[in-house]
């Protein structure tokens, strides 16, 4: 890895975004560092997706400063972001279900051999690399030729993550990667988040679930109604504080209920219930 842990990859200072007369995001400070996981937490409509769209080049910020690799920039397109090593993995549009794993892995960046009209796909090489790269991320697939829809939801997310890592991503944006997954599957994805971090990537992990964010995160940015509610180092905040900060009572009740169903620690459930007040 060329970047050392702690190097700033993406920095935001006072960044905001207006859509017409709607303020979707304002005054956001953020520092995405190599080898660290930055979690962005917030409820629906808190501005999480606006934030990642700005970093991923889908939208342009209208206020503040966005620095990438220490240089001030405005990203015009996802392609531009990709070229700067910023890759976004979206929850719902990660892969093409009926295509084999290896074709999905190299989709849009296929390896070829030969020239001109004789230029053909280097199938063997792509199959080998896909298998190896997934193995390095800890995903041990039986057969990279199987259609990707045969994998579990978590594994599909992981293939998308491994793909981004292989194609030189230095900043990895994960948009609610655990939202549609069960408890066990979420655990699988969270482990790969840590693997990506250990490979020196700066990970931006978007979620509305503090229980997924806390174990893997190094820093936590809380958003509410388009404004930052807090920006904490892990040592300065506990899971309980994080949870109660980001949510109101009704949501906590739901969370306690959810925890009961997942056989969580009964003390934890009591804590959550206590925070409701």
């Amino acid at each position, binding site marked *: 890895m060329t970047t050392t842990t702690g190097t700033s990859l993406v920095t935001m200072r006072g960044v905001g975004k207006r859509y017409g007369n709607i303020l979707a995001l304002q005054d956001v400070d953020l520092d995405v560092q190599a080898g660290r996981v930055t979690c962005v937490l917030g409820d629906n409509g808190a501005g999480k997706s606006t934030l990642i769209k700005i970093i991923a080049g889908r939208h342009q910020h209208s206020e503040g400063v966005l620095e990438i690799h220490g240089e001030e920039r405005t990203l015009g397109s996802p392609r531009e972001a990709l070229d700067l090593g910023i890759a976004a993995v979206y929850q719902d549009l990660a892969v093409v279900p009926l295509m084999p794993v290896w074709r999905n892995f190299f989709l849009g960046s296929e390896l070829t051999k030969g020239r001109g009209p004789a230029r053909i*796909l280097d199938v063997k090489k792509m199959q080998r690399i896909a298998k190896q790269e997934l193995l390095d991320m800890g995903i041990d697939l039986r057969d990279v030729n199987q259609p990707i829809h045969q994998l579990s939801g978590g594994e599909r997310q992981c293939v998308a993550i491994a793909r981004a890592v292989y194609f030189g991503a230095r900043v990895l944006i994960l948009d609610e990667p655990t939202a549609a997954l069960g408890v066990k599957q979420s655990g699988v994805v969270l482990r790969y988040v840590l693997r990506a971090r250990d490979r020196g990537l700066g990970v931006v992990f978007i979620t509305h679930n503090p229980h997924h964010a806390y174990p893997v995160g190094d820093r936590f940015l809380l958003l509410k109604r388009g404004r930052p509610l807090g920006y904490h180092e892990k040592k300065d905040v506990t899971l309980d504080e994080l949870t109660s900060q980001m949510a109101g009572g009704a949501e906590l009740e739901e969370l306690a209920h959810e925890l009961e169903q997942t056989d969580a620690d009964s003390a934890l459930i009591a804590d959550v219930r206590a925070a409701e007040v």
Partner: protein
Amino acid sequence: MATATTPAPAASPTADERLVRRSAVARLLARPEMGAVVGAVAVFAFFAAVAPVFTQLSSVATVLYGASTIGIMAVGVSLLMIGGEFDLSTGVAVVFSALTAAQFSWFLGTNVWVGVGVALVVSLGLGFLNGYLLVVTKLPSFIVTLATFLMITGINLGVTRLVAGGVSSPSIASMDGFESARSVFAAKISFLGVRWEVTVLIWLALVVIATHLLVRTRVGNWIFAAGGDDLAASAVGVPVKRTKIGLFVGVGLCAWLLGMHNLFAFGTVQSGEGVGNEFLYIIAAVIGGCLLTGGYGSAVGGALGALIFGMVNKGIVYAQWNPDWFKFFLGLMLLLATIVNLVVKKRAEQR
């Protein structure tokens, strides 16, 4: 048969010990065109039994000719369907191409090769227009190509009335270049004592090219991706719009090839023809295992669908049945083939 308790042999880097070696049969059954292979064999065996003349070489040549006139279009239509789109204008597009070539060279008195060239540009242009309208308006291809189908149908009739004053194009059989064009687009080749139509060769060549394109090139990967999930595809940088427009242009190329054959085989074209043929091409692709929703299928499958069509079409004649029943058999084939495809695909995936 190895039992589950037998320890697996040391795995090579590419093979995996958890991957129970699927038998060659099971892997073959997982191919998209497998249902069509079974169907083609069954249809052949059936007509070979009821009409022995069906298996003679001259009958085979006739069947293949019938199959090729559907098959040439089925290649383009199959790729388009794998890419997730429909084209309802293909039937009249063939006639449109032939009418363009005939009437351009007749009206301006040019060598027919000039008309052939103009028809190529116009056919590719029509394909481009279909694709361009699709990606710009984001309307379903069903609507866009239904609109162009109706418009082309009208243009075929209207322009022919204006130029030739009737319902068929003026005969260009005596014009300069007709014979040389005929020897290209409507050639007959003697082989094994039987005369084979050149369209059979064109058809096979197109299938080979399309198959190579699909499984061994980047464009092929993009076609599967565009049909399978266009949002996911464009998110990873696949030029989905260009791919789809290209597929429509490919259909235009096939329409031109078939249109030129029809023109030079007969010297004249009826302006009202072609309506309804678009369904035959789609049926061939579907029988061949191309998924209606896109993202799955093969060019070989479409070819097998066309072969089944050719066999049923001529087989009924050889069996000396009333050809009125042809459409009934075609419908039955379509139903059976799609059910077989569905079952075979599910079975193969569960293995």
